């Protein structure tokens, strides 16, 4: 979708607010949110592309004013509700309960859980060190070869995509074939893999930004095969 998140090439956001040093989490809740996302994606309650799309669907005004981990929270809450795992009304009820307890200084009884949790502390180091690769272990012939000229398609999909707006319709050259990966566009909508090659495409400055752009800049964008059309049938000069 042509969302506010797809920012490459926009003007008007002002200076970079650079800090030489900052903690990984500025506030405790940010760390908790981070760990909760690791939990829901790690357990497969949602996939990363669904979650990304949940952020992309935010209202642009809300997206721009909310902080980074608020985006995460928004998408996780929405998706858990949509998937019937945890309803927003249950969440709001719990918020109200916690707020009442805080006001009355009432401490909840410590309940010893009768079953073990799905994600336990001893599983964390292994899970983080492994990650969740989106490589697909299938042999597929690549449609494009290194050195070939390709044009990025110009779809106006309402769904999730990693085809950034600033390369749509632009011609580049296949520089690297990264191998076969699942397709975000279908993973976000029904967990459908659609495995295919992903390439690093080299674009010139003039192609992306016009004749006045500095020709000594160049760009590399990772694009899935479905995002690309061949240009002519030759190899670039």
């Amino acid at each position, binding site marked *: 979708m042509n969302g506010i998140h797809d*920012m*490459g*090439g*926009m003007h008007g*956001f*002002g200076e*970079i*607010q*650079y*800090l030489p040093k*900052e903690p*990984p*989490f500025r*506030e405790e*809740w940010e760390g*908790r*949110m*981070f*760990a*909760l996302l690791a*939990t829901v994606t790690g357990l497969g309650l949602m996939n990363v592309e669904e979650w*990304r799309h949940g952020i992309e669907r935010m209202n642009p005004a809300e997206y*721009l004013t909310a902080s*980074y981990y608020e985006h995460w*929270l928004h998408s996780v*809450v929405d998706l858990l509700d949509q998937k019937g795992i*945890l309803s927003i009304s249950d*969440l*709001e009820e*719990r*918020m109200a309960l*916690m*707020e009442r307890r*805080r006001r009355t200084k009432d401490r909840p009884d410590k309940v010893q859980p009768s*079953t073990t*949790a*799905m*994600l*336990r*502390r001893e599983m*964390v*180091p292994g*899970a983080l060190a*492994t*990650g*969740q*690769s*989106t490589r697909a272990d299938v042999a597929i012939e690549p449609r494009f070869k290194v050195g070939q000229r390709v044009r990025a398609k110009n779809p106006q999909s309402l769904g999730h995509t*990693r085809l*950034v707006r600033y390369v749509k319709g632009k011609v580049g050259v296949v520089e690297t074939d*990264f*191998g076969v*990966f699942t397709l975000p566009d279908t993973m976000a909508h029904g967990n459908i893999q659609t495995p295919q090659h*992903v390439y690093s495409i080299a674009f010139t400055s003039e192609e992306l930004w016009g004749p006045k752009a*500095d020709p000594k*800049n*160049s760009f*590399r*964008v990772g*694009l899935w095969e479905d995002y690309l059309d061949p240009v002519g049938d030759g190899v670039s000069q």
Partner: protein
Amino acid sequence: MTSHNHDHPDHDHTKPPSEVELRVKALESLLVERRFVERAALDAVVEAYETKIGPRNGAAVMARAWVDPVYKARLLSSAQESTAAIKELGFSGTQGEDIAVVENTPTVHNMIVCTLCSCYPWPTLGLPPLWYKSAPYRSRAVIDPRGVLRELGLDVPAEKEVRVWDSTAEVRYMVLPERPTGTDGWTEAQLMELITRDSMIGTGLPKQPPTIP
């Protein structure tokens, strides 16, 4: 610390928690209660990124590449080979399932961005800084890379190519900076001290060794 201490004085807020804070607490409370996760597991995730996973890891990779040409060649071959080479030093996993290393040379300066959000090689650089995730950097890194670098204090000579890598695919990028002159014979441990986070994003250069007049 093996579990999150909920009786810690900090939790007796004198001011009420913000709406967002309360929402996250409620979410945690329900996911814990429904046995998806135990609190100690959430603590372990936070601790990992606060204490173990950060740019020192990436600096160790780059220092190795500076002293070992075979290792460097592996880093600069395929993403799968570089990921394996990085894993040998103990760094792998979430948001670094594939890490490609791109080399700065006398003619090319690389810089990394994620215009769509915040993709970044967590196992080697840790979590991305705020400015990297922010709209000004994401929007302008592609349309005005030299201006962005200048704003961050790095003036790349006009004759040098600036190559921008947008992390749209599931391959994370990391810059191998040029080894500073005057570091012949330095050990990996000494070299590591020169390698900053920003030099591996490409928005900075390594520290220079002290010069003896």
